[in-house]
Every structure is written in C-alpha cells, then in structure tokens.
C-alpha cells in the first residue's frame, strides 16, 4: 500500500510522458492518478486512527540505515493536503496551460507528478535520510517547472531557486543529519525524539538551528530569496510551490524534526528553539512589511507566503501541544487559503494578462467569482472566522500564551494586521474602483470575462474548502491529539 | 699477488683516463679518453675473474669489448654526421675492399 502511494504518481508520470501525442489522454491520465492517490491516502486513516504506523523499508544503501517509509498522523495529514490539492491543481493546470497555450506541457505534467511523489515521500518518510532524499528529489523535480518558460528571467530565477535550496540543504541540513547520526546512531523518527539524553542544550540549539535554516524550503530569512525568484514560474507551479508541495514540505520537515527527532519536551526543556523562533518571528513580521511594498500580485503573495510559513516554524518552536497543533493546522489552512489566492492570480492572468495590483481596478465586477474567492482566501490567511485560518492562528496564540511569550503574541497580532493591510486592498480595488478609462475606451473591457471553467471551478472549490475547514476544525484538533498520546 | 698488482695498475690507468675525460678541453680529448677508459675496464674485468678465482666469467669482458666497440663507432658516427642512421652514399653496401 505504501509502495503504491509512492509508485502511483511516478507511474502516472511515466504514463503522462508517454502520452505526449494526445493531450486529452494525457490530462485524463494525470487527473485519474491524482484522484486515485487521494483515495489511497485517505485509505490510511483507519489504521492510523487505530494507532498503527505501517512501515516499509525500500532499500538499505547504508548499513543499518535504509530508505524507510512510515505512516504517522502528522505525515498523513500532510499527504492528505498534498494529494487532495493535487487534484485541484491538475484541473486548474490543464485549464491554465491550455488557456495560455504553453509549450512543453508533457514535461510540465511529468515533473508535476514526480513532485507529488516526492511530497508523498516526504510525508511518509520514516527517517531523516529518507526525508532528505525525497526533499532533494522535490527540489530537482520542481526545477524544470520553475524554469518552464526557458527565457533569461526564468533561468535566473531557476538558478537562485536551485542554488539556495541545494546549498542550504546540503550545507546545513545534511550536515545536521550526519551529526545527529553520529551522536545517536539512528535517524528514525520516534515519538519523543531521539536526541533527548544524548546532547546538551548548546549542541541541541546548534543542531536545531541548522535543521531550520537548512530547510531552505521553509524560507526562513535570509534564505527566503528563492521564493520570490521562483515567481517566474507559471501560476499552477506557483500554486504547487507555495501551497502544496514545496514550502509545505519545508515547514513540515521542520515540524517533523521538532516532534520526532528532538521531541517536544526536549525542545521545551533545553530552549533549543530560541534562535529559530526569533528568526521566524522576525521573518513573519519583516516579510509582511516587504509584501506591502510589492505591486506585482504574485510577488506580494510570495512574501505573504514567506511570512505565513514562519507561523508554522514559530508554532513548532513553541514546543507545547497548542503550538504544535496550531502549526500543523497552519499547514493545512494556509495551503487551502494560499492556493485559492494563487488560483485567482492565475485566473486573472489567463483572463486579462494582468500581473500588477495597480492594474486590477474594477475587475471584480467582470470576474465576480474570482474576486469573491480571493476575498475568502484572504480572510483565511488573515485568520478571521469563519475561515479555517482562524483556528491555526488561534492555537498559535494559545501556544504563545502557554509558553509565556508575550512579545511573540504582539508580533503575531501585528503581522495579522499587516496581512489585512496588504491583502484586502486588492479585493477593494477589484470591487470598489471603476475600470480605468482608457481600457473602457478601447472597449476591450467588454471582452474581459471570467477565466475558463477549468480555472474557475477549482478556485471556487478551494474557497469553499477554506470555509469548510473552519467547520472541521474540531475534528482536525481531535485527530492531531494523536500526536500527544499522554495528554 | 700478481693479479692484484695488475688490478691496481689498471685502476690507476682508468683514473688517469677519466681525469682527461673530465678536464677536456676539446671534445676529441674526451671521446678518446672515455674510449681508453673503456678499454682499461675490459682489461680490468678480465683480470678480475682471475683475481676472484672464477675465470669463467671472461664472457663479460668479451661482451663489453664488443659493446665498447659499437659504442665508440656510434659516437664517432654521431659526431661526424649528427645522425646514426646515415649510410654513406658513396659506399656501396656490403663491399669489403675498395
């Protein structure tokens, strides 16, 4: 079953790559694979809820240290998010790519499938080595996606993307992994962590810091540059990067390391997370300020992502139940919210070829669904009820309060205010400003309408999802309590 | 005893020839000196066999005599023509007497 979860997207990828002659078959192939994968992932829930952790060792390249897959609650949640959103991204991607008649569509969907396989691998990784392997696989598989356009800009962006991700992961992450291995003799993810009792607070702090910064995908400042740089990619890719696979893989990695390598109690005892926590706190504030200054829609969303990711890191570093739960929820909630926003940005681009916020005046009336969805997504990101984002923000605040970090609470609230400041005006422009005069004069305004159905449906679905997640908040909370068997 | 004296004498000869080879001054002096040093060594090698009581090693002296001959011709030819492979166009090959 685990093999199938990993192999399905790979198989799908291969099938897709063989269908380059007939786009329809190819796209159906992608879609079917996505749906099957989602169902497969859902199939794990009964056994995990029953307290089992299915495990599988794929190979053993290093004696006593294999490529191991294990299903546990945290990973399963991430897998659910990734595979679920893959379906929507695929539908959307088909619409977008065809709408823009992009070239190399087969390569695009092939890499897409590989990326999802890597994301699933990260989700189910049974030890740090496996996680690292899939982490790098994800980096390499997304690289062709980022440089999809193949022009000079795309190449420059791709180089930054690859450079930062590889350098941080090899330079810090791998190093910390090896160090951990040398200290403990194992890299398995275990409840309560493996480092506890092996290292002192100083080393623990160094290690955790290295892990956090080494996970370049989590975009902690100063290693966030790749995210805006990767904005050159087509929008479905941005959606994938920002909402589904890449960045979520990053923060998920940090979360998983905190929980299963260090152990929540261990971090709390030693205070190992201090540096990372404040770096994250700085990032989430600073990124929001930077976002305010950006006029390019995607760039603004990118910086918003940088900030939102740090919420997760902060939650992980708080090292208490509320913090961890908040962080995990943030992964799901932000994924849903941000993918909505990117879908909207893409839809706007497909429909009008506009990329700057200042050009969006009055479009809300022409594209009501898109802008409504954008509004809902924004609310979710900001963390206002009745959207899913409210839950995660709430738990994070609770966690901060539990940890007694009052300054942090202040920063979180400040950041939320900034979120409002940079997200809502976009909606405001769309609905409350008139169309620019020259556009109207050209009568081109009349030709502006909603994007293709393939684009609009997914964004409506995700917007609905944002609302739905608010309703399911309690269920997710109960599920996540599995992480804390004692309490 | 007699062999020993002979050996010493030959060694002195070698030494003297070598001194001329080092001092030069002209290249002819050196070639001649080295050639005669070689000849002395042939003698030395033959006497040595008797001195050591195993005279059956005369072969070596014989060999070196041959080699020394070849070597000297090679040097002279090199010296004269700057090449070892030249055949004298005026001399028909395999003719013994003119």
């Amino acid at each position, binding site marked *: 079953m685990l093999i199938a979860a990993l192999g399905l997207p790979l198989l799908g990828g291969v099938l897709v790559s063989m269908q380059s002659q007939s786009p329809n078959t190819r796209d159906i192939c992608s879609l079917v694979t996505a749906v099957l994968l989602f169902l497969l992932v859902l199939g794990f829930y009964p056994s995990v809820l029953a307290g089992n952790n299915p495990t599988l060792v794929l190979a053993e390249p290093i004696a006593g240290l294999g490529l191991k897959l294990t299903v546990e609650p945290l990973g399963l949640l991430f897998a659910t998010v990734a595979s679920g959103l893959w379906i929507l991204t695929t539908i959307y991607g088909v619409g977008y790519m065809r709408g823009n008649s992009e070239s190399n569509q087969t390569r695009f969907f092939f890499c897409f499938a590989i990326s999802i396989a890597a994301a699933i691998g990260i989700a189910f990784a049974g030890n740090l080595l496996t996680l690292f392997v899939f982490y790098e696989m994800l980096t390499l598989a997304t690289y062709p996606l980022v440089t999809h356009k193949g022009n000079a800009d795309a190449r420059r962006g791709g180089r930054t993307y690859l450079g930062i991700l590889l350098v941080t992961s090899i330079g810090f992450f791998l190093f910390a992994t090896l160090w951990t291995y040398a200290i403990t003799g194992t890299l398995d993810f275990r409840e309560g962590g493996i480092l506890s009792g092996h290292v002192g607070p100083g080393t623990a702090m160094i290690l955790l810091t290295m892990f956090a910064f080494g996970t370049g995908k989590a975009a902690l400042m100063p290693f966030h540059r790749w995210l805006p740089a990767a904005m050159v990619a087509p929008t479905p890719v941005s959606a994938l990067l920002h909402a589904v696979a890449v960045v979520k893989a990053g923060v998920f990695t940090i979360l998983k390391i905190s929980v299963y390598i260090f152990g929540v109690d261990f971090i709390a005892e030693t205070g190992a997370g201090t540096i990372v926590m404040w770096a994250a706190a700085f990032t989430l504030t600073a990124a929001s300020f930077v976002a305010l200054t950006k006029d390019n829609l995607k760039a603004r969303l990118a910086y918003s992502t940088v900030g939102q990711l740090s919420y997760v890191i902060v939650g992980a570093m708080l090292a208490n139940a509320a913090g961890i739960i908040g962080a995990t929820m943030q992964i799901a909630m932000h994924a849903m919210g941000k993918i909505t926003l990117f879908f909207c940005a893409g839809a706007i681009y497909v429909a009008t070829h506009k990329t700057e916020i200042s050009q969006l005046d009055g479009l809300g009336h022409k594209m009501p669904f898109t802008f409504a969805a954008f509004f809902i997504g924004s609310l979710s990101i900001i963390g206002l009820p009745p959207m899913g984002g409210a839950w995660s923000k709430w738990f994070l605040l609770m966690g901060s309060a539990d940890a007694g970090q009052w300054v942090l609470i202040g920063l979180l609230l400040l950041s939320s205010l900034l979120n409002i400041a940079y997200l809502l005006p976009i909606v405001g422009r769309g609905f409350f400003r008139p169309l620019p005069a020259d556009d109207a004069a050209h009568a081109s305004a009349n030709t502006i309408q909603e994007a293709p159905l393939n684009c609009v449906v997914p964004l409506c679905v995700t917007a609905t999802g944002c609302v739905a997640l608010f309703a399911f908040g309690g269920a997710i909370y109960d599920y996540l309590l599995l992480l804390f068997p004692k309490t | 005893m007699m062999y020993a004296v002979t050996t010493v004498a030959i060694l002195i000869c070698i030494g003297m020839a070598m001194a001329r080879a080092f001092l030069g001054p002209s290249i002819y002096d050196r*070639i001649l000196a080295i050639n005669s040093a*070689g000849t002395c060594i042939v003698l030395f090698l033959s006497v040595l066999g008797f001195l050591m009581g195993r005279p059956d090693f005369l072969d070596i002296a014989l060999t070196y005599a041959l080699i020394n001959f070849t070597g000297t011709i090679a040097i002279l030819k090199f010296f004269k023509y700057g090449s*070892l*492979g030249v055949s004298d166009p005026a001399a028909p090959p395999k003719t013994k007497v003119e």
Partner: protein
Amino acid sequence: MINMVLLMLLLASVYAIIRLDRLLTAVLLTSLFSVLVASIFMVLDAVDVAFTEAAVGAGVSTIFFLAALAIVGRQCKPTPRRKIIAPLIVVSATGCVLLYASLDMPRFGEPLAPVHQHVAPRYLNDSAAEVGPPNIVTSVLASYRGYDTFGEVGVVFTAFIGVLMLLGAGTRRTSIEPPTPTGAPKESMRKKVVLKEVADLVIAPVLIFALYVQWHGDFGPGGGFQAGVIFASGIFLYALIYGIEPAQRLLPPRRLAYFPAIGLLLYAAVGIISMLRGGNFLNYSVLVNDPLHGQHYGILAIELGVGITVAAVMINIFFSFSERSL
C-alpha cells in the same frame, strides 16, 4: 678495496655529469658510469647483473641517447642559479632520511644479515635438485620468480608499443633539419676501409656469441636478456657502419614488429601449456613427466622468448629513433 676505488670513480663521474653542460659529454660519461657500475657488480659477485649492465647501460642506452641527441641537438642551457635551491633542499632531505636509515643497515658483506638467512638459502641449497641449472640466478629468474620475468618481458614489450605509437616504424620524416654536423663534410669512404673490414669481421661473431650467451645461460652468466641485447648490438653495428636503410632491408621493420609479440607469446605459451597440463601458470615441472626435465625445457623455452622479445624490441626502437634523424 677495489670496490671503494670504483665507487670513488663513480662519484667523480657523476660530479662531472652534473657540472658539464655539454650533452654529448654527459652521455659519454653516463656510459662510462654504467661500465664502472658493471665492474662494481662484478666485484660484488653479481656476474649476471654486471653482464646486463655492461650490455644495456653502456651499450644500448648510450646508443639510444645518441640517437635521441641526433634529433634534439646537443645544446643544453646551464641551470639558472635560482633553480638550484629547491632541488637541493629536496635532495638533501631525502639524503638525510637515507643516511639515517643507513645506520641500522646490516653491515656490508655480513653473512648473518637477514637477507642471507631467509628465503635465499633454499635457492642456494635446493635449486640444483629442484630446478637444475648450476647458475642459481637463472633458476630463480626463470623458475622461482619466473612470473616476475614474465612481467619484465611485459615491460619491454610495453616500451616497444609505446615507442612505436609515438615514433612509428618505417615512416620517415624529413621535415626536421638534423643539427649541422661538426667536422668536415662527408669524406670519401676510403678512410673507412679499416672500419668496414673490422666490422665485417666482428658482426658475425657477435651474432654467434649472442646465441652462445643465450644457451649458455644455465651454466654461466648470461641468458635470454643479455643474449637479446648482444644480438641487437650486432645489428646496431651493422646499421652504424652501412647505414640504416641496408639494415632495414635486412630486417624489414614491418616483419620485425611481430617479433616482440612472438617472444612474449612464446613465454606465455609455456605457462599456458603447464596450466593445461594441470599445473599452475609457469609450473614447468608438469611440462613432461620428469619434473627436472620439465624445468629444463621450460627454462630453455622462456629464455628463448625473452631473447627474441628483447632483441626485436631493441632493434625496433633503434630503427625508430634513427629513421627520424635521417
């Protein structure tokens, strides 16, 4: 005593080689150096080695050097002062390590030294019964350590392949001007009558002598390698006096180029036959029913192989070099 005098002469000649900038003299002195070394080997009871060193160091190497100088010229720049220091430091350091080691070396000539206690006694005492030839060096070379000698033939063969790859055989280049010869231009051959007479007298005996050395190796100093070199120098002599073209008519390079391989294959064939007869590679004892006879035939055959390869390689290399300076 003799040994020490010879060593002092060696030191003198090396000093001269370092000091002299003229390459021709350096080559001549190197040849002298080799003969002196051969004499030392003789004094130190290594007759086979002395034989080889005299033939190779003084003969073949010198001729190769001269052949190369004929192409590259004899001028040599003196070493600039600044370039002396680094080598001096390296050399002194290495020398110090060696001197340091020398203090613990077994004394010269000491019969109780470890080298004479282990391994070697078996060769001295049992080789006559186990292998046969009175020349123990031949027994060790051809039988006990026959595999090394096989490797040695391999080295010679490799050098042959290398030189052939680089210089080719039977391909003449005329684009390069040979260095202008000193001395008078070509004189009439009248003055070479003596030379030719002597050469004609000598060449045939040289070749026969080579055969003698080849087959006599079991009993006295000599063997395939020395024989090959002597045979080759007989041919050198011919080529030197009559020129390379007649020599190549005598031994066409294309055909000559087969012989190194033939010698090596002959050597290997002996080994393979012994493998086919159930022994290990180069185990001559299984060649025929009587082990001692087997050893005898085996040694004769491989010595022949060595002789063929060495002679053919040396002649080939000589041709390759001298063609280039025509």
